[in-house]
């Protein structure tokens, strides 16, 4: 009889699992607490597990808004706005701003200028900051490019100066750093399982509560409403730069996207349509995804070699996926594109 009872119970349990849309009712180890944050011009979703999840999310949201206030290029209270309106004078900045500029200079050097945070005036000229898009005049671009050079930025502890006509923007780094900082907040609340998506940039703390890896989907740049592949991670960030994220179609029918090549001031069109970087440090992942997108098919291998602890997924403009061997067993292609492991030699 007890067997029959078991059977009945199993069926009831199965049916309720299949049909249920139950409410979240408690907050135990396996229940996720989620929070939406609308900041940095994007949608962020934070999810944490465990009994401290609620206060951890609260503090994480505060930290996001704090960083936004320091780092936004368009808010007049921000460090970046002050630097950009300093007429070449020194500006005192926060620890966060100094850390990000320091990183931008480091990756600028290691990628031979593929990442250049002084590209901002060019980005503005294209209309990417206001959504009033237009194709700039060639001469205008040339004159703006004269002031694009990250090597002119002077950082001295927590003071920054840039040439009078230069302007900087930390859009290529801010979300990566924010991810790292959220992980620190979570750790300080003894959270050991959490995952956040900051406008598509994913970063995870630990693994899922059941001990298995998180499965993170990467979008298909050729059809961004669909996923292209799934990678399994724990304690890592998965950050993508793609030509589908922010773009407009010009009067000439061509697509123009927001990742600008500092070499010519035009949207970087060097063979890649999306670059995903996977690694423990979200800030490095964010910088590298932009830099590698710009460096393109001719320059990516050199840069990749300098970051052996990171994994990469590239999508070429002729619809091929290239990825590094480190994720070979954790990578699942769910697109119709071919996918192959990159041969480093």
């Amino acid at each position: 009889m007890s067997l029959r009872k078991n059977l009945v119970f199993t069926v009831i349990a199965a049916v309720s699992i299949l049909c249920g849309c139950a409410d979240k009712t408690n907050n135990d180890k396996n229940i996720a607490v989620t929070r939406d944050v609308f900041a940095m011009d994007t949608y962020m979703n934070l999810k944490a597990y465990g009994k401290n999840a609620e206060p951890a999310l609260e503090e994480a949201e505060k930290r996001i808004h704090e960083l936004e206030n320091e780092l936004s290029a368009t808010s007049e209270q921000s460090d970046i706005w002050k630097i950009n309106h300093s007429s070449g004078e020194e500006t005192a900045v926060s620890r966060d701003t100094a850390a990000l500029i320091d990183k931008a200079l480091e990756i600028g050097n290691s990628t031979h200028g593929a990442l250049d945070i002084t590209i901002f005036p060019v980005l503005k000229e294209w209309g990417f900051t206001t959504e009033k898009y237009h194709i700039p005049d060639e001469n205008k671009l040339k004159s703006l490019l004269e002031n694009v050079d990250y090597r002119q930025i002077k950082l001295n502890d927590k003071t920054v100066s840039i040439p009078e006509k230069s302007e900087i923007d930390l859009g290529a780094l801010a979300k990566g750093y924010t991810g790292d900082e959220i992980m620190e907040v979570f750790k300080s609340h003894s959270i050991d399982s959490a995952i956040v998506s900051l406008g598509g940039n994913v970063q995870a703390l630990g693994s899922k509560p059941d001990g298995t890896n998180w499965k993170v989907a990467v979008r298909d740049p050729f059809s961004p409403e669909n996923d292209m592949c799934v990678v399994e991670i724990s304690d890592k960030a998965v950050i993508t730069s793609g030509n589908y994220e922010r773009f407009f179609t010009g009067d000439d029918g061509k697509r123009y996207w927001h990742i600008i090549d500092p070499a010519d001031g035009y949207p970087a069109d060097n063979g890649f349509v999306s670059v995903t970087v996977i690694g423990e440090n979200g800030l490095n992942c964010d910088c590298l995804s932009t830099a590698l997108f710009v460096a393109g098919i001719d320059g990516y291998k050199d840069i990749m070699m300098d970051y052996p602890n990171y994994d990469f997924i590239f999508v070429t403009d002729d619809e091929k996926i290239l990825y590094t061997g480190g994720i070979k067993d954790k990578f699942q292609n769910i697109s119709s594109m071919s996918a192959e492991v990159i041969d480093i030699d």
Partner: protein
Amino acid sequence: MTKSIKLLIAAIALIFIASVIAIILGTKKPDSTCVEVVQNNKIIYRFDLSQEENRTFRVEFADGGWNDIKIENDEISIIDADCPDKTCVKTGVLRSESIPIVCLPHKLVIRFADKENE
């Protein structure tokens, strides 16, 4: 029937049910049909799309803004909104757990409900 035969039948029945469940779970695409419509962290609707009738309805906000949400053939989408960029409309129907429909100006999100929390 001896006890061992009863046990065997029960065991087979259990395995059969387990496989049926596995097949149903495995072929459902996407895994869940439970979706949440969330406005600034408050769940304003929760639907099991497989149970919902086709319809279009409007959600309105305190500032006068609105989004028109359409449920059709077990799929959900935003078909119109009063915001300038209409990113939410361009997203189309909700397909992926990792790609929610988002209307930033209205802080509105439509996403699949968390499976683990059900």
